[in-house]
């Protein structure tokens, strides 16, 4: 790890999708008008598939290296260097990120191809591919960024693309509301994420290593052991908890899962790519990437596993009663993400990442299959209006069924290999309650998935005759992608077999160099390693799956049990809780959103009336004062002046009569005056 292989190939994995996005955004409208949608398809898919090809090439280049030297660095330029914080725009490729890159460009590339058919009639075709490419770019930055801030650039970048694609059909406010909700809920998580970064930087600075470059953090993390953090928690615990809170936003875990079901408002390929296969798994990736920190904080690990298990179970129970075909899959995604978090939360990082990968295969397949159904029915998403589609859409049915078997964990499909490993490791690390939740969740998963299969593909068609007439199998591009993903869902699990079947786990071995910090190895070693017990627990899981499947079969295919009767159970309390998604949206609305809006209005009122009121009051007081001063001035000060002049005038008016013009008169006056003076003097002398 000291000497990563430097390369300048990795940048092209990232930059090609960016280039595709840039061309689409700047010239897409013109290109589409002039040369048709095929140019856009070529650009959009080509950029991602070329990135996939480069990624494959680098994978082989990496496999040629010794396992402990499988690290590549592509350093582009200095981003900033301020106050001891030196960060580069640099991409870091190691076994973990190459797995992610292959999922993003591989599954993503397939979904791009699928979209060329699915979105074909949309006027804003170019815009769709622009955002899809930009999303791919942002997601690649997230997984390849060599420092936490660059990772965060991708982290929010995918949020932006998610926002734009959920609200892709923006003329309907329902869609844009869902987009806003997704972005804002994600920002709540992001707040915790950035606080974690600030705290981590401050903490590392305090021990003399101010850095946010992930490989350097890994090197210096042991120095943080015992460091005091905030809120009375040790530093590592605080940082990892905050990061995990960030992950709950992006990966839709309780309590920030509320945006994902609404996000289904976006076009179905978006749901498959962003809200199932890639973006929502970013939180799991982040925990796995920072495993050296998480392994140092057992308290956080417990929180991660507990939240994961609760989410896995509760989301599954909500999925049971939903009627929208995509909404069921959305809750299923939340639930499966919970499994992944349990995996990384109990220290089974490789198992968590493995489930991330297999989930990308089968959940993308499920979403795209659902998309194929929606496409065939002209936009219908309500499963109550479907049925019997297996006859008219055999290929969609077969692929959907394969993916269903995978998600339920039926051997030997991919989901069995990955999910069962997580369930077992939860028990192996001594978390019985978590194991129980996951075990029950597996049963519920089987129930709602087969419920979906039966409602959609079996029974009688319940839609309009018109729809019945128009139903058609998926077009070629969509069909190709469905088959490819179904095959991956079927055989993808063989990269890492459960220990009790065969000691064959090249996937885990490949990831080993990433999960080899002292703390991580310690956590791993602390679990039970008992082959026979593992076999027993695998049997228990299969029992739960079988029970769920059987119940669904009896209820929705054979009609032996009545769904309506079941929903009446316990006065319908459970049904209403599940159907109403535990009323969490309503709770948030009442507890946070409404008070905040009131507060904002109050602030604006305060600003306009109190603060500005004080200002205006001061101004009007000045005006009143000026008016008073004016009165004083005109009546008192000016009054005196005017009085003087008026008095002079009046006196003059009187006195002018003395001015007779007669010289004789004046002389008489003088004489008289002299006489008077003399007289006065004479009297005075006496």
């Amino acid at each position, binding site marked *: 790890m000291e000497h990563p292989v430097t390369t300048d190939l990795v940048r092209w994995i990232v930059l090609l999708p960016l280039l595709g996005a840039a061309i689409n955004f700047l010239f897409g409208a013109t290109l589409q008008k002039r040369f048709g949608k095929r140019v856009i398809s070529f650009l959009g898919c080509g950029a991602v598939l070329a990135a996939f090809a480069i990624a494959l090439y680098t994978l082989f280049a990496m496999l040629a290296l010794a396992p402990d030297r499988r690290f590549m660095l592509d350093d582009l330029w200095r981003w900033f260097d301020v106050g001891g914080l030196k960060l580069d725009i640099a991409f870091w490729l190691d076994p973990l990120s190459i797995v992610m890159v292959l999922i993003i460009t591989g599954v993503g590339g397939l979904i791009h191809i699928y979209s060329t058919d699915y979105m074909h009639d949309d006027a804003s075709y170019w815009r769709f591919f622009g955002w899809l490419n930009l999303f791919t770019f942002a997601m690649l930055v997230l997984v390849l960024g060599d420092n936490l801030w660059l990772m965060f650039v991708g982290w929010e970048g995918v949020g932006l693309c998610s926002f734009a694609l959920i609200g892709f059909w923006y003329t309907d406010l329902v869609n844009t509301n869902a987009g806003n909700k997704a972005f804002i809920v994600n920002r709540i998580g992001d707040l915790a994420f950035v606080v974690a970064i600030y705290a981590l930087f401050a903490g590392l600075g305090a021990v003399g290593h101010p850095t946010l470059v992930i490989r350097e953090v890994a090197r210096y993390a042991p120095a943080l052991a015992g460091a005091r953090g905030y809120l009375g928690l040790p530093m590592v615990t605080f940082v990892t908890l905050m990061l995990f809170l960030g992950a709950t936003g992006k990966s839709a875990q309780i309590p920030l899962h509320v945006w994902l079901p609404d996000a289904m408002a976006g076009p179905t390929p978006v749901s498959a790519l962003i809200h199932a296969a890639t973006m929502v798994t970013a939180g799991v990736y982040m925990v796995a990437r920072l495993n050296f920190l998480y392994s140092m904080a057992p308290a956080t690990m417990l929180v991660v596993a507990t939240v994961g298990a609760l989410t896995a179970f509760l989301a599954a129970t909500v999925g049971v009663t939903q009627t929208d075909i995509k909404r069921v899959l959305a809750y299923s995604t939340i639930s499966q993400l919970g499994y992944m978090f349990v995996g990384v939360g109990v220290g089974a990082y490789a198992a968590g990442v493995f489930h991330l990968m297999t989930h990308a295969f089968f959940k993308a397949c499920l979403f795209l299959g659902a998309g194929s159904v929606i496409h065939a029915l002209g936009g219908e998403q309500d499963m109550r209006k479907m049925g019997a589609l297996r006859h008219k859409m055999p290929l969609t049915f077969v692929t959907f069924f394969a993916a269903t078997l995978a998600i339920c964990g039926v051997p030997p499909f991919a989901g069995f290999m990955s999910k069962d490993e997580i369930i077992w490791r939860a028990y192996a690390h001594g978390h019985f309650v978590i194991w129980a939740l996951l075990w029950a969740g597996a049963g519920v998963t089987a129930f709602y998935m087969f419920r979906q299969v039966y409602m959609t593909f079996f029974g009688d068609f319940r839609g309009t005759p018109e729809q019945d007439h128009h139903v058609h199998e998926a077009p070629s591009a969509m069909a190709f992608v469905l088959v490819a993903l179904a095959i991956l869902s079927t055989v993808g699990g063989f990269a890492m077999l459960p220990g009790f079947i065969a000691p064959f786990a090249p996937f885990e071995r490949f990831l080993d160099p990433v999960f080899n910090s002292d703390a991580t190895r310690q956590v791993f070693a602390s679990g039970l390693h008992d082959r026979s017990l593992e076999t027993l627990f695998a049997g228990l899981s299969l029992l739960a799956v079988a029970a769920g499947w059987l119940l669904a079969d009896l209820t929705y295919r054979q009609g032996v049990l009545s769904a309506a009767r079941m929903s009446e159970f316990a006065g319908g309390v459970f049904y209403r809780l599940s159907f109403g998604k535990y009323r969490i949206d309503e709770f948030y609305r009442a507890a946070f959103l409404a008070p905040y809006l009131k507060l904002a209005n109050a602030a604006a009122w305060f600003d306009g009336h109190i603060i500005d009121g004080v200002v205006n009051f001061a101004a009007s007081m000045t005006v009143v004062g000026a008016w008073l001063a004016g009165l004083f001035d005109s009546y008192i000060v000016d009054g005196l002046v005017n009085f003087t002049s008026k008095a002079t005038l009046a006196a003059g008016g009187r006195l002018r009569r003395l001015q007779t013009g*007669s010289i004789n008169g004046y002389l008489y006056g003088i004489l008289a005056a002299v006489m008077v003076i003399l007289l006065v003097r004479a009297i005075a002398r006496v």
Partner: protein
Amino acid sequence: MVNGLTLNDFLILGLAVFLLGVYCVLTRRNAIGILMGIELILNAANINYIAFSFFGGGGANYDGQVFAIFVIMLAAAEAVIGLAIILAIYQNLRTIDVGAAETLSG
């Protein structure tokens, strides 16, 4: 003493001439007459100056006589300006009755 005349005699003469002048100015409406009255008043003052000069101060003091010459010069100037004014009045009003010149009357 000059030929038995004392200062008082001269002063009485001065007073008489002065009073005659005042009376002339007061009573005459003819502007020329008034001018002549003023001439008398000035000459009365001259008599007093010369008398005081002669009788007062031990003989070597000619201040009074100098002043008398000033007054004569003044009287000449006054007569010139006065006659000029009277001429202007006459040209405007065709009379030299001072009662007629009353445009400045308030």
